């Protein structure tokens, strides 16, 4: 079994072609990137606003309880409802992307919210006191200080999206999930296991890259010596 998986992973034929690993990997990465970017575009401003203004906390609660909605059900519902409205190839992509965005919003939102809310009130007060305008307070003090929590929220969301995008293959999305779903349908466990390994490897790689980004983006003044605290799981959010 393990040997066949390695053979499958190493064989050039599995990598090439429109349903080869290279294409699937690229699709997976592309979809995940689109999803995370969309989720960030929606959730970061919202989270920053909620954390900054200390208002509309219910939105965070709402987003968090939305995590209980079964992804599979949401995926099916979205496909049945949204699918017929779109006549192009996008009909396979948009419902899945939409569901994954919904999935990615809660961690990013709570990350952004908790990040801003955790900014030392004295620092925020001082920022106004030295004469920063509201936008300057946000961009020069609140966002940089919120960065550790915000980025860990984004990392958690990214991991979740990469892992969950596989299920979307059931409703026709491309990506590495195809190996799982198609492997399952045709009883080809080698493809399934190989696909799972690829997904995990992709998740780890992306997480590693994000960890590097975090290291460069976050001021050492905030991380201090707590280097061990950089690996983040969804549970923190």
């Amino acid at each position: 079994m393990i040997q066949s998986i390695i053979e499958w992973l190493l064989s050039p034929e599995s990598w090439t072609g429109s349903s080869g690993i290279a294409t699937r990997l690229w699709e997976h990465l592309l979809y995940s990137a689109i999803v995370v970017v969309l989720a960030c575009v929606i959730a970061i401003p919202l989270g920053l606003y909620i954390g900054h203004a200390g208002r509309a906390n219910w939105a965070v609660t709402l987003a968090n309880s939305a995590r209980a909605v079964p992804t599979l059900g949401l995926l099916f519902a979205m496909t049945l409802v949204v699918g017929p409205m779109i006549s192009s190839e996008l009909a396979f992509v948009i419902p899945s992307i939409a569901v994954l965005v919904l999935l990615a919003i809660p961690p990013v939102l709570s990350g952004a919210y908790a990040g801003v809310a955790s900014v030392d009130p004295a620092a925020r007060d001082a920022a106004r006191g030295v004469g920063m305008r509201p936008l300057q307070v946000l961009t020069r003090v609140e966002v940089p200080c919120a960065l550790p929590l915000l980025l860990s929220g984004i990392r958690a969301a990214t991991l979740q999206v990469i892992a969950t995008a596989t299920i979307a293959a059931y409703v026709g999305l491309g990506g590495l999930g195809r190996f799982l779903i198609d492997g399952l349908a045709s009883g080809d466990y080698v493809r399934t296991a190989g696909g799972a390994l690829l997904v995990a490897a992709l998740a780890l790689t992306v997480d590693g890259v994000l960890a590097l980004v975090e290291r460069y983006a976050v001021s050492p003044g905030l991380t201090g010596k707590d280097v061990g605290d950089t690996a983040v799981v969804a549970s923190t959010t």
Partner: protein
Amino acid sequence: MHRTSRSAGVLALATAALLTLTACGGSSDPLSSETTDDSTATDAATDGGGGGEEIVVGSANFSESVLLANIYAGALNNAGVNASTNTGIGSREIYLNALEDGSIDVIPEYTGALGFFYDPEFSETDPQAVYDVIQGLLPEDFVVLDRAEAENNDSVVVTQETAEEYDLAAIPDLADVAGELSFGAPPEFETRPQGLSGLQETYGVEFASFRPLTGQALVQALQNGQIDAANIFSTDPAIVVNDFVVLEDTEKLFGSQNMVPLVRADVADTVRDTLNAVSAELTTEQVTEMLRQTDVEQRNPEDVAAEFLEQAGL
């Protein structure tokens, strides 16, 4: 850095092993009770009764298979054999494994499909010949009972508009135009011998792209034009409802697909008489009508099966 990652790996393995062990041991109790509860619950609709080993009837993940499983189980229960269903298991590749390992005892099958499954070179098309040949192909512990007259074949369908646009009536008509068309089917169609490769070898039909889809997504995609042709079962009421055109399988690529109960040899004697009686009653028209009731009228497959059995006196 190096050392940390290696020890992390070792620890991951150890953790996984530990989990695995405890998960097995620790959970056996609640689960066995869960299984019983589940099956009695599914039985509740049919008048379960009779003693002996419980027979589990499995099904694939499409409506007709679920319906047939309910008919089989209902008939067995009516005949005093304790039977339950485990429906929606998945594709043939999966449920045959389940039959093999004893998770299920009976599964509704199709003659030609079994032939193709066990012999990629399988070439019989005549219903009786197919039935006869597969007897010899099956693994030792599997037995097929009598085949029904009812048949549900794989089919290639297109929308009315596509049929008109390209002047399509039979699969060979696709040969020249398939290069411009996309094709949708359940994922396993891509690798099955009578799937994409069969279409190409038998008819020289090679589609521009393949889109793996199941269930409603497949029907919807064809309807909305995201795919141009689809592999849908010939008994699927969606064909009638949506006015799809079934392209004639002139070369009998999909062979004969009579409905047939595939059972484990160890339960064959218990279920033979009852299920043979069911197969004797099943016609394609009846199955199509029952599927219309479950999929279009959204009736419960259990109820539809019970009605059929009552009418048939089973």
